């Protein structure tokens, strides 16, 4: 029997547990432990789903859904699960580096290499990307007054491809090793000569699946924003979050292709002996560096722009003020998006181009600081004279302004090729990019969760625990990463698993303390969600507007119905819902209701995701029959779907009317709350607009029943 035909290169030794048996050491036990946690976690989910009889609802209501809101939530859940793994890996690396001053610590060099590779890859592709994508999915269509994205099924397929990539990385915990080439996977180290195992292949296929998913997301969102805005919603009336979504989508359309090409070329080098990036026969790794960063730099703006959008929404809502400098924020966003394609070379100043070329790219890099600075001033000025509430989201925002500026300064330092030559490849750089990504992107997403959670689920999150988690996250970040600036300047190189210089020790200890605080913060955040679910009755805000919101998403019930808007809104200004509340025209019954077409659920997307995952797994392990079969099945699903005709269903007008009138009646029957009562149980989601408390009586009673248009 030829096992290789069936199992490819998988052998008994590929399983992580074999390592612990054959070569018992702490490093191997930790690896096996992680593998065990992955297996047990999967098993526990299966048991939970079975015991609670959740399989059918999971399949029927979630996995097969093409509703942008559910797709968005699934993206964010994926991001949080992957975050749990990657943040633990970060802390583990901190612990290793602390314990490895003048000895070799408790992890093997190879294990450490896998840790920074999975940590970086997961954080970028399977935490940050799905987080922003999920958020844009949930919020953007609601803000532009649309019933869904332009291509709902494609949206679900993007999600499933991303999940397939995430699963592949999780599988690598149990079967085989992951790459040790970092999240950038530079050849020739990742070529077949220096990395002969399956690790790099895991990286290649997981990242490729994610990047294809993101390309499709980008085009879907861009088309949605161009074509699906509700009547009156001109581009310059869109909330800023929609602008940043648009720019991010455009970046995705342009920037993901170079990554896909780079990973495919690397795969061809490894699988078929091509010579794109090899040392001999005309290969040239500089091509890889260029392609990767042609994607990689726009990628950081793909991540930060949606967060900028979140900050704009948060600061204006919790200051009860119209955003300061709307137009300048829009143009700043566009400038950043365009410039982000002109600076990629700053990632390899030291790799051989002439000083003149370096100077050009160094200056271009510094120029990006200008529009970003404009934004910071706009956010600051938005707060001036506003009615500021220090909610969890707002605390994150203020923390963002303070720390992001520092990170930006170190970025400008690094943009000087002369300085970069000194600190490149050190922990200074690691400190810099964590300084941008954590307070900027990650905390931006956390703030967004606090902000939009009541919209998605109909109840607020427990505020006290939210603030507690903030007070761990924010100082935790400072402690964990500011010492790394010093370490970097002392010469501590990145991706290093042991040290000899005892002077590093105190700084490493501080950084470790910070990592522990961050873990605590994450624990508190999870607790916050659990506690809030338990106390959802007391935190309920079904009427949809707990924060005195400004854009359209706050004008509909929480959670919103499948069709979002009973009647498509017609807007005539920015902040349309806020203006309507002030004018007393919010919550009016429409003249007439119409039938609404919504797409039916379909198994297409999850099946494609499943076969894509199997296909990638087959490629990693050279299981050729699986590669062929799953590839054929994947396309068979697509083709079969193209023959289906009955893909939409109609929600009758009467049903829409009943639901919407019940909602409106509930709103009218509920007294609104002022901002003082925002965090009390009185806040059911009906807000008295700030500064209009005097006119509250007109707004509270049933008197405001009226007909719009």
């Amino acid at each position, binding site marked *: 029997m030829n096992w290789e035909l069936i199992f490819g290169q998988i052998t008994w030794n590929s399983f992580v547990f074999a390592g612990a048996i054959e070569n018992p050491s702490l490093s191997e036990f930790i690896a096996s432990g992680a593998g065990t946690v992955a297996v047990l976690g999967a098993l526990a989910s299966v048991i939970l789903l079975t015991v609670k009889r959740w399989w059918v609802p999971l399949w029927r209501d979630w996995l097969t859904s093409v509703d942008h809101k559910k797709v968005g939530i699934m993206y964010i859940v994926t991001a949080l699960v992957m975050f749990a793994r990657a943040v633990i890996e970060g802390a583990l690396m901190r612990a290793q580096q602390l314990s490895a001053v003048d000895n070799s610590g408790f992890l093997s060099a190879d294990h450490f290499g896998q840790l920074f590779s999975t940590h970086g890859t997961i954080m970028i592709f399977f935490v940050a990307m799905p987080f922003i994508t999920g958020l844009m999915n949930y919020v953007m269509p609601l803000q532009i007054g649309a019933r869904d994205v332009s291509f709902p099924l494609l949206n679900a397929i993007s999600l499933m491809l991303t999940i397939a990539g995430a699963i592949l990385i999780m599988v690598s915990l149990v079967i085989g090793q992951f790459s040790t080439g970092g999240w950038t996977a530079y050849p020739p180290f990742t070529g077949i000569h220096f990395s002969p195992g399956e690790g790099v292949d895991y990286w290649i296929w997981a990242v490729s699946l994610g990047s294809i998913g993101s390309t499709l997301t980008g085009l879907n969102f861009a088309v949605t924003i161009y074509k699906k805005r509700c009547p009156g919603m001109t581009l310059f009336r869109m909330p800023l979050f929609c602008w940043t979504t648009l720019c991010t989508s455009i970046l995705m359309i342009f920037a993901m292709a170079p990554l896909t090409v780079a990973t495919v070329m690397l795969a061809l080098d490894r699988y078929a002996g091509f010579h794109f990036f090899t040392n001999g*026969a005309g290969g*040239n790794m500089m091509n890889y560096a260029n392609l990767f960063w042609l994607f990689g730099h726009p990628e950081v703006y793909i991540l930060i722009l949606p967060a900028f959008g979140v900050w704009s929404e948060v600061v204006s809502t919790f200051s009860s003020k119209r955003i300061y400098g709307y137009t300048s924020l829009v143009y700043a966003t566009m400038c950043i998006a365009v410039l982000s394609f002109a600076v990629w070379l700053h990632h390899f100043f030291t790799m051989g181009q002439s000083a003149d070329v370096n100077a050009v790219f160094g200056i271009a890099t510094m120029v990006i600081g200008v529009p970003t600075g404009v934004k910071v001033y706009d956010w600051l000025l938005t707060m001036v004279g506003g009615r500021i509430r220090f909610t969890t989201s707002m605390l994150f925002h203020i923390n963002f302004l303070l720390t992001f500026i520092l990170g930006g300064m170190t970025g400008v330092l690094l943009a000087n090729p002369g300085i970069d030559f000194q600190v490149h490849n050190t922990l200074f750089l690691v400190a810099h990019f964590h300084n941008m990504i954590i307070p900027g992107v990650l905390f931006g997403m956390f703030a967004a969760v606090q902000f939009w959670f009541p919209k998605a689920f109909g109840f607020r999150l427990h505020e006290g625990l939210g603030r507690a988690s903030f007070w761990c996250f924010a100082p935790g970040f400072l402690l964990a990463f500011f010492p790394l600036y010093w370490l970097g300047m002392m010469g501590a190189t990145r991706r290093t698993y042991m040290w000899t210089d005892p002077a590093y020790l105190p700084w490493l200890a501080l950084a470790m303390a910070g990592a522990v605080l961050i873990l605590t913060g994450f624990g508190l955040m999870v607790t916050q969600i659990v506690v809030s679910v338990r106390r959802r009755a007391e935190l309920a805000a079904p009427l949809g507007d707990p924060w005195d919101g400004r854009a359209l998403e706050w004008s509909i019930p929480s959670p919103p119905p499948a069709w979002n808007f009973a009647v498509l809104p017609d807007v005539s200004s920015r902040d349309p819902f806020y203006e309507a509340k002030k004018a007393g025209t919010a919550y009016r019954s429409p003249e007439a209701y119409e039938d609404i077409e919504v797409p039916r659920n379909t198994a297409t997307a999850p099946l494609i995701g499943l076969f894509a995952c199997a296909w990638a797994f087959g490629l990693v392990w050279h299981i050729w029959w699986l590669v062929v079969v799953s590839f054929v099945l994947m396309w068979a699903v697509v083709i079969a779907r193209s023959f289906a*005709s009955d893909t939409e269903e109609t929600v009758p007008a009467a049903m829409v009317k009943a639901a919407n009138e019940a909602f409106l009646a509930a709103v009218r029957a509920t007294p609104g709350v002022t901002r003082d009562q925002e965090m009390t149980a009185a806040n059911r989601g009906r807000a008295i607009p700030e500064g209009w408390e005097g006119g509250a009586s007109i707004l509270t009673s049933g008197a405001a029943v009226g007909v719009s248009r």
Partner: protein
Amino acid sequence: MSLSDRLHPGINLAGTDPESHEAAEEVLFGFWIFLMSDLVLFAVLFATYAAMSVQGIAAGPGPAEVFDLTAAFLETLLLLLSSFAFGFALLAMKYRENRRSVLAWLLVTGILGLAFVGMELHDYYVMVTAHGATPQVSGFLSAYYLLTGTHALHVSSGLVWMAIMAIQVAMFGFDKRVKLRLMRLALFWHMLDVVWIGIFTFVYLFGVTS
């Protein structure tokens, strides 16, 4: 906005089938964007080829030694003619809604496309057997095979798509879905011409003069 104002890329149905025309706007715009991202992919491949065909020859043969301009010219003709035929298929769809003539034109398009892929495979065969020019020989040949191979793969998937559309035309006739799909396939097919013209110019013409 009146219907005929809402123009979109490719053939427009405003005059003959307003309902499909209205539905086409968003879908065709989406596909147009997809083609743009596909073109970015080709742009990256071209850039790689540009670098590799100069610096990546190593000990292997150079472009002038392995390319056959006559074959490339015939391939160009085949592909452009097939696009021409597809244009007729769409005109027949728009003005006649006649299954037979659309299917006949699709058949012509498909045969020409198939001949193109066949000739290209033959090119590869000659290169490998006569010159030993496999992609494993040098960076230049790796880039050449990837660029032309990606294009050939696109053409081949276009052919599969075309076969499926032929079945759907036969099964469903010209309902809205089928029309919109044919219109998108046409854009795809024409885009592959544009890419091929780039390949013909930059790879073959520049190559033989190098």
